[in-house]
């Protein structure tokens, strides 16, 4: 089964596959990326995000952003993966880098992230290939496509409204100083975000640490902000514009270059005078021309 998204929308495709409890791979192409969802009896059991265009949704990078792995560890794990041709999650669990439960949470997050993104695609195409898919071992409770779909639709509806609450540009978050609160009194997602705020001021990294999608994280953050627990402020344009820092560095280096040129020009004049004095001045040339006196 294949066709254009404009003719048959993503929610409709998901509904069809889920309701008919199909097994196979649904490939969605749009917005210059390709995402593959694997279904087993109508349940979403795995996702393969676009490696080139959406590297941040790869499980390894998600765990690095969440602080469970360093970049170097990820490189080593990927090289092992390449040699042994195994799933990255299996290797991480096997090596004790992450628990099976935590891995399941992040795989779940990966599926949700990919699905939420796919739901926003308006133009593109899809293809569903039917074949038997066995649920992976990590999946304790399979993800029901219809429930994810409903959450996704809700994300689409609410996103614009929630985003308006925050500064339009990039922003940063921080715990408000002097605030004391029992985290257990907060709703679960807000509690996760409250706990993760200490790790970074970048909301994206905080949400990754809290194992929440962008939409879920914003919603929880709005709750914390509304309670007066966190402060939100726009990121300085100086730090936001990385090119500006380089341009300033170029200007600074130019001014240093001018200073250097002036200093060394002066030094060259002094050294030139010194060389003249030791080898060409009248006393020096008289010394070196002492031979002429023998002919006079």
């Amino acid at each position, binding site marked *: 089964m294949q066709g254009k998204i404009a003719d048959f929308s993503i929610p409709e495709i998901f509904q069809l596959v889920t309701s008919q409890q199909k097994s196979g791979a649904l490939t969605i192409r749009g917005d210059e990326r390709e995402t593959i969802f694997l279904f087993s009896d109508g349940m979403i059991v795995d996702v393969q995000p676009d490696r080139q265009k959406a590297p941040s949704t790869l499980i390894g990078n998600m765990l690095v952003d969440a602080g469970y792995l360093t970049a170097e560890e990820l490189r080593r794990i990927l090289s092992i993966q390449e040699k042994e041709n195994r799933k990255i999650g299996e290797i991480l669990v096997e090596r004790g880098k992450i628990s099976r439960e935590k891995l399941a949470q992040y795989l779940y997050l990966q599926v949700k992230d990919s699905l939420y993104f796919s739901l926003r695609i308006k133009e593109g195409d899809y293809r569903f290939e039917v074949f038997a898919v066995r649920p992976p071992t990590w999946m304790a409770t399979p993800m029901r496509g219809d429930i994810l779909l409903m959450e996704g639709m809700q994300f689409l509806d609410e996103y614009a409204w929630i985003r308006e609450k925050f500064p339009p540009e990039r922003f940063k978050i921080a715990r408000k100083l002097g605030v004391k609160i029992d985290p257990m009194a907060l709703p679960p997602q807000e509690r996760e975000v409250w706990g993760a705020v200490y790790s970074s001021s970048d909301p994206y990294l905080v949400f990754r640490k809290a194992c929440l999608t962008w939409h879920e994280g914003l919603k929880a953050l709005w709750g914390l902000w509304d309670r007066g627990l966190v402060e939100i402020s726009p990121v300085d344009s100086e730090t936001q514009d990385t090119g500006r820092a380089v341009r300033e560095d*170029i200007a600074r280096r130019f001014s240093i270059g001018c200073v250097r040129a002036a*200093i060394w020009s002066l030094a060259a004049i002094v050294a030139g005078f010194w060389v003249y004095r030791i080898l060409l001045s009248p006393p020096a040339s008289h010394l070196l021309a002492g031979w002429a006196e*023998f002919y006079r």
Partner: protein
Amino acid sequence: MMIEVPSGRVRSSPAMILFFFLVFLLGFPVRSGADDLFPGYASEVRAQALRVVEAAGPGKEEELAIEVRGLRKKMYSHGILSVNAIPELVFRRADREGWKNGLGPAFRLIAEISPLSAPVWAWMVMEDIRGLRFSDLFPDLAGLSGAIWRFGPARLGYAVWLVSFALAAASWFVVWTSIALFLRARPSLELDIPRVLRLPYRNYLSPLAVAVLFLLPLFAGFGFAVVACYWMVLSVAYLRRGELMLMSIAILLIVGIFFGGSMLHLASGVAGGAPGEGYLGVDGSIPRTWPSESGKGQAQGSGAAPSWLVLFSRARTKMQAGDHAGAERLWTELIESGQDLPEVRNNRGINRVKQGRMRAALSDFEAAFVKRPGEGAALWNVYQGYLQMFNLERARMIQPLAWDRVQKLSPFRFRPSDMEAGEWVGSPLPVDELFWETLQRGNDLYREAGEGEVYRMFFRPLSPGVALLFLFAVWLTSVIWRFFSLRVWVHTACRGCGTRTLIVGIRESTDFCNMCRMQVGWGIQEGEEKERRIQGIRMHRNSVRAGSVVVPGSGGLWSGKEGWTMLYVVLLCLSLAAVSVSIGARGKGDILSDLESIVARWAFLVTGVLWIIGAAWGIRSFGRMQQTLKISGKRG
């Protein structure tokens, strides 16, 4: 009562003395002038020499030739070999009267009476080259080399010129090397020195700090050798193998400068304190001053003139002045003191002839000939002696050999056919003996090194005893610092783009940054990062270009062509040395000044051309190296 009548004779006596004195002066004007111009020679020689000077002029060659022939005869009769003042006086006249360019024919005639004047021969060589007269060039070159070989001041002057030239060339090489190597190390030093000194505001203060370090010894007033060593030690950690070799050569040359300066100092001492007028030049001009008597008998110490040579000169002076009895006494004193040389015997023979003791003279001539059978002067005098004693049989036997030998005495252009009227050939100061004696004073080279002017200019504030130790310490420090620098963190500057990287184990393999080694050209990133790399490369290129203009050829070091750079620097330093040794010899208004003005002009020209070539080559070779790294002049 007696009335005293004043005597008119007594009253008029002062006026009478004044009158006779004026009459005396008016009666001998030529003699008085000749006294000033040719002091010390016999009166007839002085008078004739003055006539020669007056006879010289454009188109007056025939008149001059007659006067020259007359002077030659008078000179030979007193054993005078050369009157070097004549060409100088003629030159000054020509310069004053504006016919200096027509001096060639006059000098060709005057060379017969001033054969020991090297400037005259050099002038004729110059004229030959200018007029492309190759038939005259080689005889004139032979005359020049003969004058340098046989005339004490000329030979010593030539030796001093060689030492001065080598010293100047070595100095220029050391200056070039030390500055060029410092400039090579400058980018790295600008980061390492503030890092070590923990300077604030490093970006702006680091160029200033390094420039201050560069100029510090200059303002401290250190000698040039000390300054050069300081620069080289500072830069040694960042140099390549070829550059380290340049540095080692420079240190060795400083050692050479140390001994060269000592040689110059010793040479002035050997010459008797006044090279132009001292005892050494007695065969060209009678000395007005003599080495102090304290030097007598202490010839082996402190570079003073050997006393027996001074005595030889005194005897030659008396001989040329016509005091033959006095001269003979000095010759005899020399022989009795162990200096029984053929020259002494030959000259004593001439004095004996002039006193009418022909047989005694002949025995001296024969003794001189026996001591050195190749001695042309003694053989000629033996021949003349036989002629004078009418022993024609013997004279006829040795005539061919005597004529042949005397004709070959360079630079004297003796013409035996014109010398049949009792002309005697004297022996000049034995310059070879002087050189042997000087060479035997090898120890003085080190002992006297600190006394010379060169030492004071080049090695202050070091004391003479520690100068060589200092140079050894510099070399050792360089080696130790070089090896130590392999174990510590230092900055290396990429030769291609100037990117500076803090690394440990600096080596030639780290000469290029990774970007240049991968030949990625301007850079692999887009946007501002790329602009920053372009800016870095351009600044580096500009600094190398500026350095190559100020220190020509230094661009060759950046492009890794140390061998070619060294060859170029040698050529440049030779031409600069020619400038250094010639500019100081100008401006005295004599023949040599005129010749040296020409040499200085050419040396300046050659230096200028070499400078431009070096700057262009340095820039070009560096540009080519950047092209191989794909850092072309174009963006992209």
